[in-house]
């Protein structure tokens, strides 16, 4: 009875936690408008500046950068590597595809393969102990995912959605690596299941490329 009363008092006191002031809606709208205009102008400039050949160069540079970045993620037991094979899921090298598109398809395939391997390892043993290399892999994958989200590879809506879901789960895993709490673990595993992330990753990865990403 007294506990209930104390709970009531506690709840009443909680209402004063970080009491918000009046919403500065016009001020924020003006800033939102300005930021959107600035970003739109920047995108227009980029479209004008980058010819297909420049984009191809950028694609290769991104491939190298991401490859180096996510190359730090190492998983035991699969030292033998084969070159990744792009296929229809993320785009087999199709007739008419530009060099930039091919480069991004290749990078995307590698990235998804690494993510799938990482998440499978995580599901198998979420409490990977003090293996800092493993956890730094989550951070690297998160960075690479964000790079890809900002790249032309993410212009394809289904792929973009997959990357966004992957980003969210990786954020949760990075968080889990700091706190190692049951709640964080629950959020990660439930997030993965609800989004069917692993099956979607496996579907998106062309057959034959899964083991070909370790040595990138």
């Amino acid at each position, binding site marked *: 009875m*007294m506990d209930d009363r104390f709970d009531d008092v506690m*709840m009443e006191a909680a209402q004063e*936690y970080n009491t918000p002031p009046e919403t500065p809606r016009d001020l924020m709208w003006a800033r939102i408008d300005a930021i959107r205009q600035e*970003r739109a102008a920047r995108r227009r400039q980029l479209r004008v500046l980058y010819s297909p050949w420049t984009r191809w160069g950028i694609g290769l540079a991104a491939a190298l950068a991401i490859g180096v970045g996510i190359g730090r993620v190492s998983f035991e037991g699969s030292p033998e590597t084969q070159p990744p094979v792009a296929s229809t899921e993320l785009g087999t090298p199709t007739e008419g595809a530009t060099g930039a598109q091919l480069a991004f398809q290749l990078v995307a395939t590698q990235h998804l393969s690494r993510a799938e391997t990482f998440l499978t390892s995580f599901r198998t043993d979420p409490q990977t102990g003090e293996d800092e290399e493993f956890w730094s892999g989550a951070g690297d994958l998160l960075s690479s995912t964000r790079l890809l989200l900002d790249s032309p590879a993410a212009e394809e809506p289904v792929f973009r959605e997959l990357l966004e879901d992957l980003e969210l789960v990786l*954020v949760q895993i990075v968080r889990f690596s700091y*706190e190692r709490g049951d*709640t964080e673990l*629950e959020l990660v595993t439930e997030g993965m299941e609800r989004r069917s992330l692993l099956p979607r990753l496996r579907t998106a990865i062309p057959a034959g490329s899964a083991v070909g990403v370790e040595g990138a």
Partner: protein
Amino acid sequence: MRILEGDPVAERQMYDAQVDRIYRLAYRMTGDDDLAQEFTQETFIRAFEKLKQFRGEAALSTWLHSIATSVIYNGMRKVTKLQKRHVDLQETTATSSGPDAVEPDLRERLAAAIDDLPHGYKTVFVMHDIEGYKHEEIAAALGVRAGTSKAQLSRARAKLREALGDFAEEWAS
């Protein structure tokens, strides 16, 4: 929907309809006006950029809140200087003199205890017990089941009760 076609008037209408709840949530989570404004702005900017991907499977406000919780979560991780309340526990205990006198101290201690909750617990507690969201709304925003939201709220409350154990004892005595 006009908003999906990028109609600026419809965008402003959506903003007006949702901004209070998003800003309030951001402020409750951060306790900082600048951060709350920044996270609110980023939420709407991302939402407007992603509107074409909105599949209509959930309500627009639910979708917007899923963006907001993600923005707040990621934003808070980057913030290194969040205002923290450090209450001298010895001092507050010594100056408390009974149920009628505890409330100011209780508020301070409770605020510190909420600050110290794990992020997931804090989000659910703030959304449900302070801002009045339903478990279904919280679950949709966080991408979990409603049962998980309920379980986390229960654990959050238990942690707060534990943190304020000495106050509860005073109430019981």
